[in-house]
């Protein structure tokens, strides 16, 4: 499991090179998901320019299903994926300095809408981050349903309503050194109210960018002491999540 550590695109103004519409490009880099960018065409390209120290590129979008999403440094494809659902994607790769970070979307159908993008560092959660009972929120649906029935209890109408997902991340037995350095750095960033991404990929070479979700409104519990040693700490983080499906 990796968690995005920072976002070097926040509040920047990218350039939409292909598929520009009347929307404001900086909507993509705003943490406000009500500000988004819908391309004018199904094939689109966004240029973020030179960006250093980047090991992830994450995006939340809709109408991205069955479109090829690629992260490029100029023409070089760094990562690419064609999701089968709308949702959240986190591309991981070895840390690098981009000469010209680009997002390219290729496909057909309704143009994509990007609510948010993030690029920057990541932190790998020690011990994988997945304890027993951990809920894989990227595989669920953030909807509640209600069905009206007739006198024979047969369904006559089904309605859905969006519902915020809730994530509880239990991280037992974390090294105290990690908690006091990397974890603190992460908390310093999310404490200012930003959102962050969690991806369940276990290495930068994993090819499952869709195994991801975006988290917000974290509830940060104080680390609790280990029962046997001060070298280890128990962490718990709860937050609300959006998986885009």
């Amino acid at each position, binding site marked *: 499991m990796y968690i995005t550590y920072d976002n070097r695109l926040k509040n920047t103004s990218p350039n939409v090179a292909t598929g520009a519409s009347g*929307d*404001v490009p900086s*909507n993509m880099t705003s943490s*406000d*998901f*009500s*500000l*988004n*960018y*819908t391309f004018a065409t199904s094939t689109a390209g966004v240029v973020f320019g030179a960006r250093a120290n980047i090991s992830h590129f994450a995006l*939340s979008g*809709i*109408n991205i299903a069955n479109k090829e999403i690629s992260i490029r440094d100029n023409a070089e494809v760094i990562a690419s994926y064609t999701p089968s659902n709308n949702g959240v994607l986190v591309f991981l790769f070895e840390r690098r300095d981009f000469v010209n970070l680009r997002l390219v979307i290729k496909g057909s159908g*309704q143009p994509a*809408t990007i*609510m948010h993008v993030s690029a920057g560092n990541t932190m790998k959660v020690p011990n994988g981050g997945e304890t027993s009972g951990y809920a894989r929120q990227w595989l669920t649906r953030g*909807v*509640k*349903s*209600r069905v*009206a*029935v*007739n*006198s*024979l209890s047969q*369904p*006559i*109408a*089904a*309605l*859905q*309503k*969006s*519902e*915020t997902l809730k994530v509880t991340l239990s991280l037992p037995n974390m090294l105290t050194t990690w908690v006091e350095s990397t974890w603190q750095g992460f908390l310093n960033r999310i404490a200012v109210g930003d959102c962050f991404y969690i991806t369940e990929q276990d290495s930068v070479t994993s090819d499952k960018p869709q195994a991801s979700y975006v988290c917000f409104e974290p509830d940060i519990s104080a680390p609790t002491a280990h029962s046997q040693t001060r070298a280890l700490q128990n962490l718990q983080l709860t937050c609300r999540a*959006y998986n*885009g499906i």
Partner: protein
Amino acid sequence: MAFDDNKQAFSQHHFTIVEIDIPIVSGTCTLGGQAGYGTALTCDQPTNATQTYRFTTLDAPTLPVSGVYRCIQSISESATELQSGRGLSSRGSININFVDFKGDPNPLAPAVTNTVKNNGSFLAKLDARNILANRPIRIKNYRIVDGVYPDFDNDAETRHYLIESFESKGGGKWVARGKDELSRFNINEKLYPEPTDGYLTQAIADTGTRFYVDPNNQYTAGMVLRVGDELFKVTGVGNIGSAGAYVDAAFRGSAINSIHLTNRSEHSAGDEVFICKVFSGASIDDVLTDICTTVGIDSQYMPSGDWASEIAVWHSATTVNTIFVEAEDANDVLAKMLTSYMLDMWFDPVDREIKLSAISVWRQSVATLTEGVQIDYDTIKRQARDDLRATNALVVYNKPYLTSDDAIENYKKASLFSNSLLESSDYYGERKQKRFDNNPIIDDNAAELLTRRFIARYGITPQAYTWKAQENKLSYKTGDVVSILTDSKVGFDGQPDGSTRAQITSIKPNYNGIGRDYTVKALTYAPAINESGVVNDLVISGNQSQITLYNEAGGAIPEAVNLTFVLDGAQVSSTSAIIPALRLGAFPSGSVITIILINGATVQGKGGDGGTGGTYLIDDDPTIPDFGTNGQSGFDGGVAVDCDGVEVNIYLSGATGNATYPNADGYIFAPGGGGAGGPADPLSGDPLYYTGSGGGGGAGSTFGLGGSAGAVPDDVRFESGATGNNGTSTGNGGAGLDGSGAGGGYGQNGSANAVGVAGGLAGKGVVDSGGVVTLYGATALRYINGNGDH
């Protein structure tokens, strides 16, 4: 794709966007030389654009559109609700609760720096920089079906309101209250007709015809003016707009039109001059349009074609002939118009127009709603509205002196209708009366329709239904008439009763559950035609005069019907020899009407009046008459039943084949003709010359009057003959006098006088007028034909 295109989809994901339009200043904006905030309140420059702010609920799905602020906690909407029998509906309203958030509503305005953007919160700044009251606010409902997002510009169902207030509830919460657009026009605060500040500049006696008036108003010939209690029609004007302005009236105290009268009186300088609103032969929709226009309703909200069509169907023969002689609360005037003609009016926030619908039991169902399908299972509730029920309706109308008070003595006519069957011990066992306010607007036809339609609509206790419905099953609108199939209302056999007919009075959207659903209200009535096409028998009782069965059934019958009228002991008559006592009216072609007379019901036309006696003509010597005239012919008797070309079966005795009224017992009598007036005899002068006596009146329920004696010349040697004898209502004509003819008995011609002048023709029993008419049990005792067709 439109909102309705995928409305019936089984699975739907609903969401709602609320839009608010606010005028802004785009570009240069300064306030007192300093940078401004881009709004009307914060710029010296005039507004030059409209900013549409869009908000959605906190639980809305992710939307592929930018700039929709996710900050609505809840939406509640009170839909407009028809107020049965009161005409004007209740107004719709909305409450939208917001949670404030960081941001700035005018980020591009010159004064909005990064510091300003970070100050305060979005909604608080929106409220501070704008007056939000009366701004359009729209609720736009969308759905996602099969993962496909709607077209945000074209796929919404938009519900239009106006902001009434935008208030902070503390803790970063705000509420926008809205009202429907009918409220924009503040009907409760407007007068109709529009008052003027007219006044007399000089006193005037009750004989003068020139009124010197104020220079403020544009008086024109043809206007009807009111000064004090006096009305007069303007025939000419002079010096209008100047100090010597005057208007002329042709005759003081003369009738304004064929209905309305006035009394002349003297007036003082300074007395108010009111410009009356006159309607002569106008249609109902014309009057309603004028009222709405006067209070400021834009024509775009009044679908004049729809209104005219509705009136043409349900009030085809009704015209409005009235004069509004004082400024009254427009709401009251509108309500009076609507209740007078049994109309409902409401504002539809989706179509964004004012709807008009007539109330009639003949209105047909547009959909059948079944519990478990269109009605959510186990959500339906029913409440008896006995407060609306009436078995007897009375309206007093025809007010010749419109400026007199509203006391009953100032009205000339009344229309009364009862349903005696419902008053019998087998039904409600009591008379429950509806007394309409005295009505100066309606005419005979409208009064008849009003009382009949009201009893037809509210004779059986209306049931108020409430239920929940899903959006994919919502196939009807407010005002529609539907049939209801529900387990909560069963027929005699215990099966759901499909004859339950109801008008939808309200459809209220509910936003705060999982997806939208709707709370629907409806009010039932006994339909004239049930779901099986069976028409209920209509019972007429009591004393009736000049009735038209088509109107008795409520008029505006949409299709050919097989309909039975039962005259239960009714005594049906006419006061005019040229108007039938009973006529069928304009039933659609193909209709078959059955009339069953029971309990001695009788239909008779008016007997013919006797002719006037002869008089004397005098030539050179005024003392000796040259000759006497022969007296006038008697008048013809009237008609008992005119079938107006309709196929009719009339049962007078014997078996009827009707389960409820198996045996007939009634009478139809042609009236008698009037006798001729007696001659004046120039040789009879010893010592006095008598003018001819009047002829006898014919028999009839309203018997023929005896004729007048001949006119008496102005000389002492002439004397009047006798007034003729009236006919009787029991079958005999008035006897002849001194050579005049006797009136005819039932179905008999009046007699000729002594010199052979003919009496009037006998009246007519049943006149077919082209219809196929069959009489059953028409024995000589039961039926007298006269000059009728049978």
